[in-house]
């Protein structure tokens, strides 16, 4: 019985959380979600990424100093919009890019961009 009560209490807490909105703010929430996306699709199988312990693959450039790069993949101005477009479908954003398209939605790509920008602020 007590378990049920606890579960019900948890459920209300979850239900009270506001639904995720579509704002493209680089909020901590978005970065947190972005990190979860990076872990789910495992961007780490090609990149070493700050804050991601495993995996740290060596197939692609490390993103350790990514905050500071001027051009994304040496081609695109480093803006949130460009970054979101690039991490979702790199060959479309930068013709000829060898990073494959990733199975994430546009909203998830924005969260990923928020995480990548916030990485070294911690």
């Amino acid at each position, binding site marked *: 019985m007590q378990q049920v009560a606890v579960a019900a209490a948890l459920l209300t807490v979850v239900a009270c959380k506001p639904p995720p909105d579509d704002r493209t703010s680089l909020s901590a929430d978005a970065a947190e979600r972005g990190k979860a996306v990076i872990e*789910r*699709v*495992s961007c780490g*199988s090609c990149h070493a990424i700050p804050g991601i312990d495993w995996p740290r*693959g*060596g*197939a*692609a450039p490390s993103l350790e100093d990514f905050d500071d790069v001027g051009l994304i993949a040496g081609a695109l101005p480093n803006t949130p919009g460009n970054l979101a477009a690039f991490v979702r479908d790199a060959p479309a954003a930068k013709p000829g890019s060898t*990073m494959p398209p*990733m199975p994430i939605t546009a909203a998830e790509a924005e969260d990923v961009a928020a995480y990548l920008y916030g990485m070294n602020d911690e």
Partner: protein
Amino acid sequence: MNKGAASGIMEALWGWPPPVFDPAGPYASSVTTLAWVLLALGVAVTGIVIAALYVAIKGPERWRKKLGGEKAVWIGGIAFPAVVLTGLLIWGLALTASLTEPIRGREARVRVTGEMWWFRVEYLDPAGRVIVRDANELHLPLDRPVVLELRSADVVHSIWIPHLSGKMDMVPGRINQLRVEASRTGRFGGVCAEYCGGPHALMGFVTQVHEAADYDRWLAARAARQAQPVAAGATPGRPGAVVRDPAEPQRYDPALGWTLFRDTGCAACHRIAGTEANGLAGPDLTHVGSRLSLGAGILPNHRGTMIGWIADSQSIKPGNRMPSYDRLSAEELGHIAAFLEAQK
């Protein structure tokens, strides 16, 4: 699609309720009962010890004397544990005896072999002949018992799918049997539960439970694909399976991927049914395009992880027995990945 990094392992060990207390079949249910009883006994004994400690420190003189007497040691230290542990052992063995019952009738049989550091999976027909070779995942029919024939190719491993059954060792030179049965469809994670060296912590797999009719169709389709004769020259795959992705016209060519796969030496370690690739040192890749994970239950399976794994599996799973192919160019990796994705 895949839930995420380390998915098979995460699914086996995380979640609420904890997988051990969330059985999805009759064999796991008896293990769960045992787990609850052990937990309850553990709590009771801890309670008794705390009470005794309190009495020993703060209790009245007369009680403290009794607690320190010889009789208390005989009862609490010898008789109680002997009776409780013996009872528990007998009851526990009886409760879980069904997990290891030998084959009675026409149960499905699957041979699972522990390898450093992945699982070889072979589906057997009633006569014990291998009809489908696969790796790192187990497909099960709903509500039908399946007998796993457990072996090891090297050191001791142990297979554990907490939602479906108990834990059973895979011992070199022995065949152990373990029954699994699922009473709900879905995905359940599994792990190697015995330290087997190096990347043991990254040795997992995924179980997928299908409706019985779907399972029969699935197995028949796979068996047909596995029986495909070797066709020299042609790009392997299920007929019609090698289609170019319209979103990516001509960029990566599965046929070129096959040539690279063959000429780079992958075929020496990996088998793909119906081709000259017949290596046995690594997982069978005949169905790798529909594999639920890569790297033995640790990565989701998509173009990105496929390339990442081939290019640098040693960073992802340090010490595993496949070399990193950093000498392949990004284009070559793309062709190979496109080819492997078509192997459904």
